[in-house]
């Protein structure tokens, strides 16, 4: 008993803060969060954003249709740059997705209860971002209707995919990542869908939510197994998310192109992914807070502050990666690696490199100032700049190395075409459209985990009835 009380006091010490602002009860939490979905009249901004997303989504459909009808030649890719925006954007999108898994799985395992209010929405981002990402390699195969060839299936040709290739690893990594993220997301949604089922008035709406809730009744026995399953999924998602971006980085690191063949790639890609992903959580989370002011009690300034701190930390790791890349180039003494360092600094794409250093290395340092970490307009600008910076990082890695490799005769210059732009901007529309549709249909904040947080707050801060004041000073 004595040991127990000491242990629990240490644990509460780790999270000494209350992550719910204002006075809330289980009733108000359910009302506010389900109300965002069940409100028959969404705010005007919702219509504007969804409409805009839908229009831009059509640009994507146009770009895909034209590409499929014509061929990948419509892109700017050509020798020596066989990989260009398609893979830049693939890596960028998949990196954005990673914050969702980090927030929902890794922070869950670390008992970071502040994640409860941002995980749902970040997980949705993960799924939509992976959808956008997956589109690029699938289209880049040139004949997307034969993409099932990527999977090992018994075929009349008697052939199998080459499982020694990082590109084949990608197929498995990304498809597993998408599947597991979807399962994890859906599992997390079930109790909340049950809340929506019980709160909705319209019989058809009730019926749809009723079917989707799988008949969830909140039985203690069900919760027990549910939490087991949820934690196991979190436990496997954590190494999964690390493996996905590691494997994505293998696409480059296993190759011998100058600037790609380094061991720093896996950790530096993973950190970059989290960096970009948290930036995207802020890019969408901040406008959401102003469109739905009622959720400000749940996504508080403390959350913004902590997210900014994570941005700063992962940004520093990424910056360290940039410095090490330069160091490796110099220290290797290899002519081609040295030439790459020179080209980054003084080559045809040097401004991209300088912009990258500014966006990811210099600008995020402002997060050291505590007032700025809670300043919404600043954070929004920061998140956009980091998003651009992470895109530049992939651009610097990919076309910059490919256009300046071993033989001067095979040097070249890469520029995107209008169809590269159309597809890239189109996927953004796709992402925005899906995200806003999600906001209208499913709760953006995990309702049952907010109730759980409230219960913990009651125990911790004594709003409830049982006196745990003795755990204040136990050591």
């Amino acid at each position, binding site marked *: 008993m004595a040991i127990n009380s000491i242990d629990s006091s240490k644990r509460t010490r780790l999270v000494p803060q209350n992550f719910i602002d204002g006075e809330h009860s289980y009733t108000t939490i359910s009302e506010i969060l389900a109300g965002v979905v069940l409100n028959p009249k969404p705010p005007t901004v919702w219509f504007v954003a969804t409409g805009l997303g839908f229009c831009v989504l059509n640009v994507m459909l146009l770009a895909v249709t034209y590409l499929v009808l014509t061929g990948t030649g419509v892109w700017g890719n050509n020798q020596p740059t066989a990989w260009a925006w398609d893979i830049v954007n693939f890596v960028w999108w998949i990196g954005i997705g990673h914050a969702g898994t980090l927030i929902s799985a890794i922070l869950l395992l670390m008992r970071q209860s502040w994640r409860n209010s941002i995980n749902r929405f970040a997980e949705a981002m993960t799924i939509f971002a992976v959808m956008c990402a997956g589109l690029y390699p699938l289209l880049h195969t040139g004949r997307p209707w034969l993409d099932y060839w990527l999977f090992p299936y018994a075929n009349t040709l008697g052939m199998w995919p080459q499982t020694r290739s990082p590109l084949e690893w990608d197929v498995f990594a990304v498809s597993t990542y998408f599947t597991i993220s979807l399962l994890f997301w859906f599992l997390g949604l079930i109790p909340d869908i049950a809340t929506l089922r019980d709160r909705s008035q319209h019989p058809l709406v009730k019926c749809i939510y009723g079917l989707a809730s799988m008949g969830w009744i909140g039985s203690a026995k069900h919760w027990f197994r549910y939490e087991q399953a949820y934690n*196991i999924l979190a436990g496997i998602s954590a190494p*999964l998310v690390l493996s996905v971006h590691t494997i994505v980085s293998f696409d480059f690191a296993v190759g011998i192109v100058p600037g790609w063949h380094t061991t720093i790639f896996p950790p530096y890609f993973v950190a970059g992914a989290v960096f970009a992903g948290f930036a995207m959580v802020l890019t969408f989370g901040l406008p959401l807070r102003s469109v739905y002011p009622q959720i400000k009690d749940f996504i508080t300034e403390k959350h913004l502050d902590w997210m900014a701190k994570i941005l700063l930390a992962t940004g520093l790791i990424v910056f360290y990666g940039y410095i090490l890349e330069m160091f490796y180039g110099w220290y290797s003494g290899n002519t081609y690696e040295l030439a790459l360092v020179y080209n980054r600094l003084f080559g045809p794409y040097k401004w991209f490199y300088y912009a990258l250093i500014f966006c990811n290395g210099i600008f995020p340092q402002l997060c050291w100032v505590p007032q700025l970490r809670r300043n919404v307009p600043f954070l929004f600008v920061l998140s956009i700049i980091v998003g651009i910076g992470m895109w530049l990082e992939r651009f610097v890695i990919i076309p910059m190395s490919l256009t300046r490799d071993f033989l001067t005769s095979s040097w070249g210059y890469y520029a995107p075409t209008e169809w590269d732009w159309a597809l890239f901007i189109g996927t953004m529309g796709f992402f925005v459209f899906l995200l806003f549709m999600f906001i209208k249909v499913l709760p953006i904040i995990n309702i049952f985990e907010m109730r759980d947080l409230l219960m913990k707050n009651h125990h911790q801060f004594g709003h409830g009835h049982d006196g745990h004041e003795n755990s204040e000073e136990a050591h």
Partner: protein
Amino acid sequence: MAHVADESPKLFGIVAEFDDPDVLIEAATKTRVAGYRKFDAYSPMPVHGLAEAMHFEDVRIPWMAFFGGITGCCLGLGFQTWIALIDYPMNVGGKPLFTWPQFIPITFEATVLVTGLTTFVSQFALNGLPKPYNPMFNAKNFDRASQDRFFLCIETRDPKFDEASVTEFLQGLGALDVSEVPA
């Protein structure tokens, strides 16, 4: 409690409604101590300590996940080995066919995939979901079990079940309301 006994003959159980998770834990403990076995508690979020109070334990999901993982791992590694060594051997510069380090990424992904699918499916299977109809939905006020209220239901299949005594017992637990659940 006033409206007991003259309804349909089919009864699923007697339910008590609470507004606090800690009271629910206490009630579950008392119910178990009183000797009831076929009862369940319902809450809008996982209440830690409730399963313990009910003496409920089930370790099948972690084990299923574990064996799912082993299966995925064997499938992943075995399939790649079979392709590389037996069905489609390819001589790449005289290098060995069994290049196991290069099989690790897909083996890992297969492990995760099968573990995840097993966990997901077994959660539903063991919980008996999806189940569109559940007698508990007939319970009074039960739509709040997914929002802000906590319920404890002693079912008729409990050997000790007796309508009058169960009702009286539940009323003694500090419930807001006690009512019957038609099956």
